[in-house]
């Protein structure tokens, strides 16, 4: 039992219980959670019924901030789609993020992602995804700084 004085530099302090459980890689969920409690805001339908049981889009996962817009072809051929897929194409006449689609249509984020992925595949939507590594791109960071500095 060592006493900890503020002027010691104890890197592992007893006050942060999770501090030392690192396995070296980024990532574990912050704390234990008793498995999936579904989001009560979603519809009464089991969420992944809407996606035929698929839980992810076919290619790499779409980021929740990816920007989505309906293509002219998608808007011209709304009849090809039913229910949520159609709603997404209609909604995305105004560009928005995947997360925003989920909120506005009361869809599970994962479900919105799968459906958007499908609609991208069929050419009804187009997307702008965050470039990989852009969050470490100095020019982009500088522009964000300037943009924020302009806020009054």
């Amino acid at each position, binding site marked *: 039992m060592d006493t900890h004085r503020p002027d010691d530099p104890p890197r592992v302090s007893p006050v942060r219980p999770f501090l030392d459980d690192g396995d070296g890689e980024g990532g574990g969920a912050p704390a234990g959670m008793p498995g999936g409690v579904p*989001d009560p805001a979603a519809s009464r339908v089991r969420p992944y019924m809407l996606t035929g049981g698929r839980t992810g889009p076919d290619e790499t996962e779409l980021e929740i901030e990816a920007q989505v817009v309906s293509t002219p072809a998608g808007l011209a051929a709304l009849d090809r789609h039913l229910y949520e897929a159609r709603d997404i194409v209609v909604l995305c006449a105004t560009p928005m993020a995947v997360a925003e689609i989920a909120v506005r249509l009361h869809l599970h984020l994962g479900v919105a992602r799968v459906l958007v992925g499908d609609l991208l595949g069929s050419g009804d939507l187009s997307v702008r995804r965050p470039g990989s590594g852009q*969050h470490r791109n100095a020019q982009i960071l500088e522009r964000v700084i300037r943009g924020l500095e302009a806020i*009054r």
Partner: protein
Amino acid sequence: MDSKPSDSTAPERRPLPLPVKIVIAGGFGVGKTTTVTGISETPALTTDEPMTAIAGGLDRPGEASGKTTTTVALDFGCVTIDDEIKLYLFGTPGQDRFGFMWRDLTEGAIGALVIVDTRRLDDCYPAVDYFEQAKLPFVVAVNKFDGQLSHDLDDVRWALAVRPETPLVTFDARERTSIRDALLVLLRLALQRTTTAAG
């Protein structure tokens, strides 16, 4: 068909903005939603549900908070940075049982603001642990509820045991400019890491 500067005469579809994102994290009831709402140029989108009796047992806002609803999914807002970049701010879900969303929220993020209420310091430990492990730049932002701090900042730093290079700032989640300044500290940290890594 090369790149002529097509001007406003054509009903040109504007190119989609490049999305960038910052995570707003911290314990339950520390002011994450207030922060997202306070800086967002559009009404922040929140799926905020009244706490159920069951969740009430789990979520224990405690006496420290007068909060009666809790964010069960995620909340976010955005700031248009310029004609090409759009900044998104995503608040982490308030409860541990939504921890599975953290990876989605943090993947590709510029960094995170970890909001701290000095009356309940331990609430932010999971977030601090997570970002340290994920090596994501983060700033600890102590929310001055009612303009007061109940602990000295040095004590907060010591109790959190964050690395010396992790900035610790105070801010007021109800003030737009105060949120802006906290975010700027984070962005400068992220920029500094980038240029250090490059040079």
